[in-house]
């Protein structure tokens, strides 16, 4: 299939995933409200919020990077999406994964982070800088166990291609990395918590302390773009982790269910645990998840 | 007895060096040096000494024949002259140093001239 014929399918997939991401966000707001014995906002609230933000009549910006920042940010989310095969075995929904493998996706996460950082930096707000410095610092620690987990998977399957990793996990639940290398899964899922920015690792946006961290200056359409990206990015990350550890998906239903479960994990932990300070979370990641990551490699190497 | 000159010379050299190293007064040090210098000279002369021979001065007719076996070695005697001259030169130089040092600090104690060290 040529690149250009792929574009409609890619756009379709993008549309589905953004909406699915918004839906999941809404569902989770609802679930966490229930945990707090509230009724919670309607499931469709994220759509309304998004419409409202796009419908804001005025907006302010601070400079060219304030414009480009959200573009980079959304580019990061869309980029991960573009290079990730969604449905295993589906030629239509493998996106542009022919151009790069797992490493490309990993490093595309930085694309968005850099955009956020630059845009927020241009805003000139001290809280943005604090938030970004926290976010980046925490992210370094988060990536470490993930790196171990990915290397463990690469050793296990002798490939860095996401498609092949998923392919190798087909054929029953016991073929999932979850069972073939539980340590890698544990390390990966712990870093997933951080990657999702869920509590206890959400000090980056700490609303009470530094109003909302990096996006403090973003308004109206800029914020809308960021929100769109958040919806997309979180679900895409869930899909990535699903592909890595839980056998991927062969159809849309499986994709929805599995990614929902992965996503739910972050939510579940987040509603239960209080927030870490950033130095605490870094040190925590350099303890348990790091050891799990090393165990993952040792496990796959020697057992 | 034939080594008495040699032994005296050595004793003088050692005495001189001993004085040279232990006396704090510069003049006494110089005296120590001249003593050991003299000792060296004595040694040189006594080296040339060969038993039952005479000085290499051909003032007697009998010496003109078989000269080599009748006289002591003449070379050290030539050397000793040079050595004495040099010794005198060095002594004079040292004395002038002593004078200059005394002019500098009004003292002749070697311990007072430690401006330069380390």
């Amino acid at each position, binding site marked *: 299939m040529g690149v250009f014929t792929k574009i409609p399918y890619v756009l379709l997939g993008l549309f589905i995933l953004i909406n699915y991401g918004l839906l999941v966000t809404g569902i989770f*707001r609802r679930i966490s409200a229930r945990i707090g014995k509230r009724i919670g906002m309607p499931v469709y609230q994220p759509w309304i919020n998004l419409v409202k933000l796009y419908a804001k*009549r*005025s907006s302010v910006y601070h400079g060219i990077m304030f414009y480009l920042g959200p573009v980079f940010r959304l580019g990061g989310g869309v980029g991960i999406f573009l290079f990730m095969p969604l449905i295993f075995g589906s030629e239509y929904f493998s996106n542009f994964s022919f151009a790069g493998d797992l490493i490309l996706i990993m490093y595309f996460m930085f694309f968005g982070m850099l955009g956020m950082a630059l845009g927020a930096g241009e805003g000139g707000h001290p809280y943005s800088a604090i938030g970004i410095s926290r976010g980046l610092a925490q992210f370094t620690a988060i990536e470490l166990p993930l790196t171990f987990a990915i290397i463990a998977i690469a050793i296990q399957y002798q490939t860095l291609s996401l498609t092949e990793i998923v392919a190798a996990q087909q054929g029953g639940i016991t073929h999932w990395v979850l069972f073939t290398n539980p340590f890698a899964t544990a390390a990966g899922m712990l870093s997933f918590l951080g990657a999702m920015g869920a509590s206890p690792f959400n000090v980056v946006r700490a609303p009470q302390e530094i109003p909302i961290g990096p996006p403090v200056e973003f*308004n109206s359409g800029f914020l809308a773009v960021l929100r769109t990206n958040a919806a997309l990015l979180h679900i895409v990350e869930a899909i990535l982790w699903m592909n890595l550890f839980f056998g991927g998906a062969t159809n849309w239903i499986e994709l929805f269910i599995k990614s929902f479960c992965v996503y739910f994990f972050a939510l579940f932990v987040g509603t239960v645990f209080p927030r870490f300070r950033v130095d605490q979370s870094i040190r925590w990641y350099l303890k348990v998840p790091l050891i799990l990551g090393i165990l993952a490699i040792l496990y796959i190497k020697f057992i | 007895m034939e080594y008495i000159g040699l032994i005296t010379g050595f004793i003088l050299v050692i005495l001189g060096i001993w004085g040279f190293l232990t006396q704090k007064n510069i003049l006494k040090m110089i005296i120590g040096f001249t003593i050991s210098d003299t000792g060296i000279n004595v040694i040189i002369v006594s080296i040339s000494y060969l038993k039952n021979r005479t000085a290499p001065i051909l003032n007697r007719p009998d010496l003109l024949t078989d000269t080599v076996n009748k006289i002591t070695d003449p070379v050290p005697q030539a050397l000793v002259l040079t050595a004495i001259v040099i010794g005198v030169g060095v002594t004079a130089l040292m004395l002038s140093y002593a004078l200059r040092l005394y002019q500098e600090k009004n003292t002749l104690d070697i311990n007072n001239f430690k401006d330069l060290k380390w």
Partner: protein
Amino acid sequence: MSEINNKNTSGIEKDKFFAPENEKRTVTAPDGQIIEIDPLNDYFCGDAPRVHKPHKNKLFESFLNWARAESIWVLGFGTGCGSIELYPLLTPRFDAYRFGIQMAPTPRQSSLMIISGYLSVKTLKRVVRSYEQMQNPKFVMGLGSCTINGGMYWDSYNTINRLDYYLPVDTYIAGCMPRPEALLAGFNHLKKAIKEGKGEGANKYAENFEWYKANQKKIIKDWNMPDYNW
């Protein structure tokens, strides 16, 4: 700081409260050039606000208004004692989230400002600044009698009597203090107003900008910000 004040005010009565941080000052650039800094002009945008007309398509505009009404983000800014009545709204008992009402941390991202009770002059300055930093469309809700006519502080030397002289108010909630139920009713009223297209406070503010500004400046004497805080 006081000395600067005194020096600056010598002789000129109207400059008595000219904020010292707004004084012109000179700095030396790295290349030796002397630069004069005029803080108000150099650091702030300072343009007057613009009227943003609603969308021409009525139907589309009403859809957008619906979204605006159903997604009210409240600026977390408690101006007076009434803010204590706001927080129960978020508890399971009242659960304002049901109505799409959320707290937002910064003015940039919020659409509703609640003036919760009496408003002293000192706070008014901050309120004006925060309000102006919110993006159009934006709404103001006056909470309690104090915002309506001064309430029990009507003759205080330092609290305003009528909020609508300073900000375009969309909804008042009477009471001293109004209970959270009253607040919910107020929110409903506000939503209705927005859906009806009456939530044009921001445009009203822009249209009557000079009047509002004159009123504000009348009581805020040490005006240390540009006329409009973008």
